[in-house]
């Protein structure tokens, strides 16, 4: 399943961001409905049915595909909203849907057999048996791999499964099993897997304490940034905690993933598509990041040197970048 071309899959939290992604050179855009059926259920974000239909039509006019993300897990007795989202994605003309829940995969397979299904990173399928299970039972065409694999792991999985794979190229680094952040659930009482938000904004409070910024999630203080220190997202896994008399980032530091320097290796590993994270980010972010990766991929395709190191540093969380598990593996 090796392709000589790396597909650029870009985020769109709003119709304006979708237009920005298309203009910046996205091959594919992914977006979600305005409810808890997707994992970026933030206020004011996402698409209603009319916007989704118009967005798909606009993307298709410009030679771009649209994937609809329905990657949260239906709550017992409330499956109807998730089924409705699958039906609406099909009706809007989406090129594929990105799913994680087994029940929902089953529903989509039976109800819309012609609609491509991609396995969301939320499913945490990080080994060949797991991926092959989803392919055998739900005929998934692509798997989005978790950010815990090294390049060698990715290459090995592709060899074993012969599946289309999509890997994260830019965004955050998460130490959790994707989509199962129990820390956030514990601190807020809201489940990211059901509500579609990690560190929900309703529970986040920033306090300006004499030029120091204190970020809190619920009643827990996650971090305190001194005057000249870059700030970070208020996610529990990036909190700076005191343990055994020492204050440190216990799980993961606030730092952004950027794989632009290892694109040749990812291509050589047989990766099909690169995912840019950030449906919750602005259209300015989408333009900048997608534009940078478009140029890098065009340079790669042309066999010329990629000059993109450091271009996106300011866009990264905490103003710092890493190649994450791709180079160092997972702890």
């Amino acid at each position, binding site marked *: 399943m090796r392709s000589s071309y790396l597909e650029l899959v870009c985020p769109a939290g*709003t119709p304006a961001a979708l237009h920005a992604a298309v203009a910046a050179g996205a091959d594919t855009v992914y977006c979600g409905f305005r409810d808890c059926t997707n994992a970026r259920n933030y206020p004011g974000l996402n698409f209603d049915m009319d916007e989704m239909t118009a967005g798909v039509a606009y993307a298709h006019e410009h030679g771009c595909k649209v994937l609809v993300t329905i990657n949260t897990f239906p709550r017992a007795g409330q499956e109807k909203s998730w089924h409705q989202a699958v039906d609406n994605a099909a009706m809007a003309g989406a090129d594929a849907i990105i799913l994680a829940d087994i029940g929902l995969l089953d529903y989509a397979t039976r109800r819309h057999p012609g609609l491509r299904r991609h396995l969301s990173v939320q499913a945490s399928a990080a080994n060949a048996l797991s991926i092959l299970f989803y392919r055998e039972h739900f005929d998934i065409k692509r798997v989005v791999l978790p950010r815990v694999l090294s390049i060698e792991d990715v290459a090995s999985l592709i060899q074993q499964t012969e599946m289309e794979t999509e890997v994260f190229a830019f965004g955050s680094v998460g130490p959790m099993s994707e989509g199962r952040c129990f820390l956030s659930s514990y601190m807020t009482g809201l489940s990211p897997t059901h509500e579609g938000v990690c560190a929900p904004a309703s529970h986040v409070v*920033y306090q300006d304490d004499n030029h120091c910024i204190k970020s809190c999630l619920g009643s827990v203080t996650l971090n305190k940034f001194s005057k*000249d220190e*870059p*700030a970070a*997202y208020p996610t529990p896994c990036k909190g700076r905690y005191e343990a055994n008399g020492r204050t440190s980032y216990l799980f993961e530091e606030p730092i952004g993933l950027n794989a632009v320097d290892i694109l040749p290796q990812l291509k050589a590993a047989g990766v099909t598509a690169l995912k840019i994270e950030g449906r919750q980010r*602005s259209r300015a972010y989408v333009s900048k990041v997608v534009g940078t990766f478009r140029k890098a991929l065009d340079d790669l395709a042309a066999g010329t040197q990629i000059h993109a190191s450091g271009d996106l540093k300011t*866009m*990264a969380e905490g103003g710092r970048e890493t190649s994450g598990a791709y180079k160092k593996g997972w702890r």
Partner: protein
Amino acid sequence: MDESRLPVPLARVALRVIPETVLNRLTYLLIRRMQKIHPGLFQNLARLDAATVCIEPSDLPYRFVLKFGQGPTSLRTAARAGCSCDAAVKGKLESLLNLLEGRIDSDMMFFSREIIITGDTAVVVALRNTLDREEIRLLDDISAMCGPVSNPARKVIVRVNKFMEHIKTSMKNAHERRHSRDANEAAAKLECARLQEEIKALKFRLAKFEVRGKRMDASAL
């Protein structure tokens, strides 16, 4: 200068000199005009929960209070102290205008501490996402307030800003020239003093030679 952007130096000066009552009337008219130009934006704002956000330009002596959600949207000025809002966004006027027009990523500004958010984060996130859906060009919207003379008004704004920039540049250059002239004068004075000292020393030596010569003449006689 990007002529599609509201000139920030001019905006800053205008916001400092326009009396508060006039400014509030102008913001009222601007919001009304924007409702006509961006109906989708105001429909989306009305869909949000009712909230009040303080917009605090750190380089202005007052702040703006934006009310939206479950009713008409309004914008007015308020004193720096004594304003109770659900949330506040603080930063330089230029950063806040860039944010409004979607020119810069707000998370990036947050990471670099160019903007500071306090209070109910959900309110700010909802507002940011709603604004980011719309292509806002404030210069277009402000000039549109002038109705049939919007194009000339826009040209006037751009020209006044250019004039201001020209004055600013001229003053900067004059200042630098003045500094440079002062520096030249000081160097010339130093050189002059050095030459005067040298002349004085030469005169002294010459006088010595003259005395020595006279002595030699006298002994020869």
